[in-house]
């Protein structure tokens, strides 16, 4: 049928092609324009900016300094590598906890044992609807050392003196602040849980039936069927989570205006980028930091994409 069509009306075929090209481009033109204006040109000029000593607060004063900004960021300014390390450390704590929590929650909310699924799903999703600044304000109160409920509950249940000036300093202790930020982040986890649940529902039930017949227990079914089958969704969420964590900014900014409290622990790379670019208006240096964020995020993305053949299972392939 295909050959008959192309053979019979060759002339119409090429006009058809021109027609499709014309209208296709017309329809996608908003994106093409936007891509050039808001992505490609700024990205390239960002590289150019990084070669200048350029400060917006002193108008007209920009000077070409070559790789000076890059040297400063990589070799001289210890804040940059430290901020990257802090971001990694936070990611090392927050990503495993968030993923474990989201996965467990999804398994539970999808379990055949659970009655009232939609009720639980809606309520576990509810905090994701709260504006994130509001979330931080609520958690700031509940984690308060003296009057916060967390410390008061710990004290009344265990008897350990959690409140008071020697109590648990969730947001001021160097050891606890990443953990506290992770708890706060769990309130925004709803979307991840939803995607996991959707993934779990797509696992063919025959697989479980066959495994049960073969005598596989709950743990075997989880590690041999469930987890491999939802690796594409883990992969997708992992990429988004890594990009998001590299740009982790809102929580430290709302809680302490990005001043790094306690002891510089919350000087994440995005916080430092904001300070250099929009407090000091060092636009050239800011561009370097932005590129460092970009390079690191891309490195992780590339590693994930190249290793996905080994651990991500796509249904229908092979």
């Amino acid at each position, binding site marked *: 049928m295909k050959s008959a069509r192309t053979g019979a009306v060759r002339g119409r075929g090429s006009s058809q092609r021109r027609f*499709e090209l014309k209208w*296709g481009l017309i*329809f996608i033109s908003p994106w093409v324009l936007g891509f050039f204006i808001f992505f490609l040109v700024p990205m390239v000029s960002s590289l150019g900016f990084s070669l200048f000593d350029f400060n917006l607060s002193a108008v007209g004063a920009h000077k070409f300094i070559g790789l000076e900004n890059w040297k400063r960021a990589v070799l001289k300014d210890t804040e940059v590598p430290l901020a990257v390390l802090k971001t990694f450390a936070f990611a090392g704590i927050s990503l495993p906890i968030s993923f474990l929590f989201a996965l467990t929650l999804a398994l539970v909310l999808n379990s055949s044992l659970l009655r*009232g699924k939609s009720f639980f799903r809606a309520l*576990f999703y509810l905090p994701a609807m709260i504006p994130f*600044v509001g979330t931080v304000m609520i958690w700031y109160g509940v984690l308060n050392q003296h009057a916060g409920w967390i410390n008061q509950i710990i004290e009344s249940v265990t008897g350990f003196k959690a409140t008071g000036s020697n109590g648990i300093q969730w947001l001021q202790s160097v050891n606890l602040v990443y953990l506290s930020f992770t708890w706060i982040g769990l309130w925004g986890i709803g979307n991840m849980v939803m995607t996991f649940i959707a993934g779990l529902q797509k696992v063919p039930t025959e697989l479980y039936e066959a495994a049960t017949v073969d005598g596989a227990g709950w743990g075997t079914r989880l590690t041999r069927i469930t987890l491999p089958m939802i690796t594409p969704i883990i992969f997708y969420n992992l990429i988004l989570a890594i990009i998001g964590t590299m740009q982790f900014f809102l929580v430290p900014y709302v809680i302490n205006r990005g001043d790094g409290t306690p002891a510089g622990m919350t000087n994440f790379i995005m916080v430092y980028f904001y300070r250099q670019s929009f407090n000091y208006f060092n636009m050239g240096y800011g561009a370097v930091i*932005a590129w460092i964020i970009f390079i690191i995020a891309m490195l992780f993305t590339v590693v994930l994409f190249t290793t996905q053949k080994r651990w991500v299972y796509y249904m229908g392939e092979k």
Partner: protein
Amino acid sequence: MGSPAGNLAVTPSRNRASTPAVVVMRIKQVTFFLGILIVLAVFLLPLAYGVFTSLKTEFQLSAVGAPVLPSSLEQFENGGKSYDVYSVPMPDGTTKRLALVEKGRESSKFVDPTRPDAGLIDWKGAWRALNASWRIDLRWVNFVTAWKTIDFLRLLLNTIMYACISTIGAVCSASFVAYGFSRFNFPFKGAAFLVLMATIVLPPSVTLIPTYSFYFSIHWVGTWLPIIIPTFFSNAYNVFLIRQFMMGIPRELDEAAKIDGASPLQTFFSIIVPQAVPALIVVMLFHFFFCWNDFFGPLIYLAGQPGRFPISVGLTKFFNMYVRQNSLVQASALISTAIPICIFIFAQKYLTQGIVVTGVEK
């Protein structure tokens, strides 16, 4: 459940075997349910804290031994004066709620609020050691105070202005682009779509400095324009979502319109858009929540323009200033939550669908 099985009592052995299994199942279900209920309670505990705190007085928040529920000290009014009420242990072993009239170091004078004419009761002991008597008192006025202090109406109008204009931009541009990708064949279409998808993993910070400097040079910094205009050029998530949906609309519909002489634009508006309404609603909702939460853009572009702040930035500034007035902080956080949660309740189905499409059908 057991009794109807009785008239079928042909195989008692099997019956006996299944009943305990059912019971075990039920027990499992109930413990599972209760366990998750507890987890849910812990998960939502901060929300309860926020609600309770927002209804308390600052006095209660700093008072030692204050109850968990929003309360105020019980007062006894007599002769134009008000007195605090305390729980007073009496010599006969009972505890009475008495109003403290005259404070003394070793003994104080009380009066029984229920029988004020019975005269003063002399009580020996230090009144400071007594527990004050609290009475439930919900301070709804905190919400009014927070609303006024923060000038919430203005934040709300700014946010709604932003959300409405940019939602129009986002939905129109994304459906346009999605139609282009789903219905027309042109060279490098696959590659272009890949590039579009790749912008999802691009950290926005990398383009920020040049765009900011550009907006600065054309005097757009300090206005909403740098935040609103880019939404008119579509975004990868929205395009993906609408495209997925459009691929499911039968092509026969477009073909029929084409045979009738409709141009692609006419087809788009008269056939495709009406069919794609569910997807457009999802994108609208997502974009609305995105606007409600959008923080970094307004923070840098509207810096120093408090009259133009959206809720997210306005709340942050308020929080930094009034951090010690926790009841107001919690009240304002809850006010900001009201509209998104209302929308969530009515549009839950659409939202879940959208999340599933973007997250699973890659």
